[in-house]
């Protein structure tokens, strides 16, 4: 990792008053095997270094293929703090472009998603195609003869895709996405089985921010320990049978470190492979849906769809910004050392039965979102961590819970912080 990240400038450590730059930090000393230092949540200079050494230095999730299904479709996203446009060009290839005009830096797109053939900077009218190529410059005669439009495309990041998950990287020289995901791929494949043969479709998202460091959220997706505590009010809103399904500590689950900061947390072992156990009885809460589907679909397909509606029984956490969490995508975006934006993207079956997809949307709304029965309590917990971390600057955050095969072990967090240490000290 000796090359400078493409299209990034090293962050200057020089202070404005002319004093010499600060000495490099010993980041490795801030992460031990069973704990991390509080400064990882609160130190703005560490946050700046993370943007450089992590988010501009690895694969960052930007889109699901179903968000840009057709040529001309685009969405806007972020790679770290950098705004990008994810486009599907005429030939079907995906491009990830920095959302910044090469003339005087205006953003060329301010829509969440849409369809177009051109992005036009509103300031002086420079226009770019879906691949980022500079197409037109108004009053081009004002430039001298050496001006070449080929020198000023939108800056393009490297793009690779696995199982419909589209990642971008500012680094042309790092390992392939396939190699980076490694042992996590098996779990991503299992997760996508909730498409029930139709394929997964991104179907809207809840977005919210909380006042806390991004790693507090990263930890949470591999934290079964909090579930029965923080989410008691969600659990008590369920019928008895469903409450047992969400007894995440009591079903023999486990956490596994998958390498490169990735991990999987299996909470409901019965729901690891949604194409198995299709003979099990239909849960009572899905009986009405099953009856409705039975009017149009053969019994075996009804079982497969109904089983998929309930989602997977695990979270696979991909370092640093995406998790495939039970039935949705959790995307995190670092905004500041003490502010993070979260997207909880709902997923449906692409072209699947409307009744089944409505059921998935209602299940998502039940737990997720700014007024869900789960998310506001998570967000409150994370803000309390950030508020508490203002005290005891010399204290450590403990990650020493549990054994390898215990679902409430902090194994996934330990794995993520080891990756943090590797990347920050490289």
């Amino acid at each position: 990792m000796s090359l400078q990240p493409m299209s990034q400038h090293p962050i200057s450590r020089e202070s404005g008053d002319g004093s010499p730059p600060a000495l490099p930090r010993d980041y490795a000393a801030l992460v031990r095997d069973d704990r991390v230092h509080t400064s990882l949540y609160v130190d703005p200079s560490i946050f700046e270094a993370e943007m450089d050494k992590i988010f501009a230095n690895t694969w960052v999730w930007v889109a699901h293929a179903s968000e840009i299904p057709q040529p001309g479709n685009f969405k806007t996203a972020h790679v770290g703090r950098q705004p990008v446009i994810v486009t599907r060009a005429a030939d079907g290839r995906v491009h990830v472009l920095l959302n910044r005009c090469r003339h005087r830096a205006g953003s060329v797109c301010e829509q969440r998603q849409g369809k177009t053939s051109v992005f036009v900077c509103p300031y002086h009218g420079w226009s770019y195609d879906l691949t980022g190529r500079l197409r037109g410059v108004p009053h081009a005669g004002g430039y001298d003869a050496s001006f070449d439009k080929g020198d000023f495309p939108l800056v393009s990041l490297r793009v690779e895709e696995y199982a419909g998950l589209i990642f971008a990287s500012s680094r042309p020289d790092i390992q392939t996405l396939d190699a980076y995901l490694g042992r996590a791929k098996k779990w991503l494949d299992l997760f996508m089985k909730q498409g029930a043969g139709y394929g997964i479709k991104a179907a809207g998202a809840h977005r919210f921010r909380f006042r806390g460091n991004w790693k507090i959220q990263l930890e949470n997706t591999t934290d079964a320990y909090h579930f029965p505590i923080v989410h008691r009010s969600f659990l008590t809103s369920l019928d008895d049978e469903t409450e047992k399904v969400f007894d995440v500590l009591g079903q023999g689950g486990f956490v596994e470190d998958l390498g490169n900061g990735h991990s999987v947390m299996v909470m409901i072992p019965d729901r690891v492979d949604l194409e198995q156990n299709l003979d099990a009885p239909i849960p009572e809460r899905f009986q009405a849906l099953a009856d409705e589907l039975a009017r149009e679909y053969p019994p075996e397909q009804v079982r497969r769809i109904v089983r998929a509606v309930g989602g997977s029984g695990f979270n696979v956490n991909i370092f640093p910004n995406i998790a495939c969490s039970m039935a949705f995508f959790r995307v995190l975006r670092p905004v500041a050392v003490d502010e993070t934006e979260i997207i909880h993207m709902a997923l449906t079956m692409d072209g699947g039965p409307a009744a089944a997809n409505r059921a998935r949307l209602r299940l998502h709304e039940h737990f997720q979102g700014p007024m869900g029965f789960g998310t506001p309590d998570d967000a409150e917990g994370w803000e309390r961590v950030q508020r508490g971390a203002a005290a005891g600057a010399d204290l450590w955050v403990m990650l020493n819970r549990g054994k390898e095969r215990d679902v409430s072990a902090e194994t996934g967090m330990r794995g993520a912080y080891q990756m943090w240490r590797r990347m920050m000290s490289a």
Partner: protein
Amino acid sequence: MNVPQGTAASAAADTKPAQPITLQEAAEFIWLEADLLDTQDYTAWLALWTAAGRYVIPIERSGDDHADRLNVVYDDRLMREARVQRLRSGLSISASPSARTVRTISRFRVLGEQAGGTRLRCAQHLVEYKYDRTRTLAADVSYRLVRADAAAGGCIALDEKVVRLINSDDALFGMGYLL
């Protein structure tokens, strides 16, 4: 003005149009609802609704086909009751205590009659406070109000409420109260 005792009858049961709801009656009803929400008198709030009433906070500001899209809230009677039970349970850290709220509703406009009810649209400004932070949420709120027949006391009930936040499709934040 009459306040309903218990859950009011469904709008669907009202086949013949009752006496139209005046702007004054509608405003008084909506102000009562706002006060019940700010004071978190959620049991009384539940009683304002018809049995078939729908409480919706969409993400996309346009369109009315909420059932097939992801929403912040898409509540029928059972989900409203479960939501209130959760907020009152003492088990939710975001609601115990929640942020304090003060809301003002105005710009009432009667849009006409629909499905035996009166449709209105108005503006809501809500200010919330918790943990040394004060935030505002603005919304266009549309209501469908129905009047039970005279035998049921002629009281007004809430049959649909759709809260379209000004920033509904942008990043929001956890809310331990009702809009």
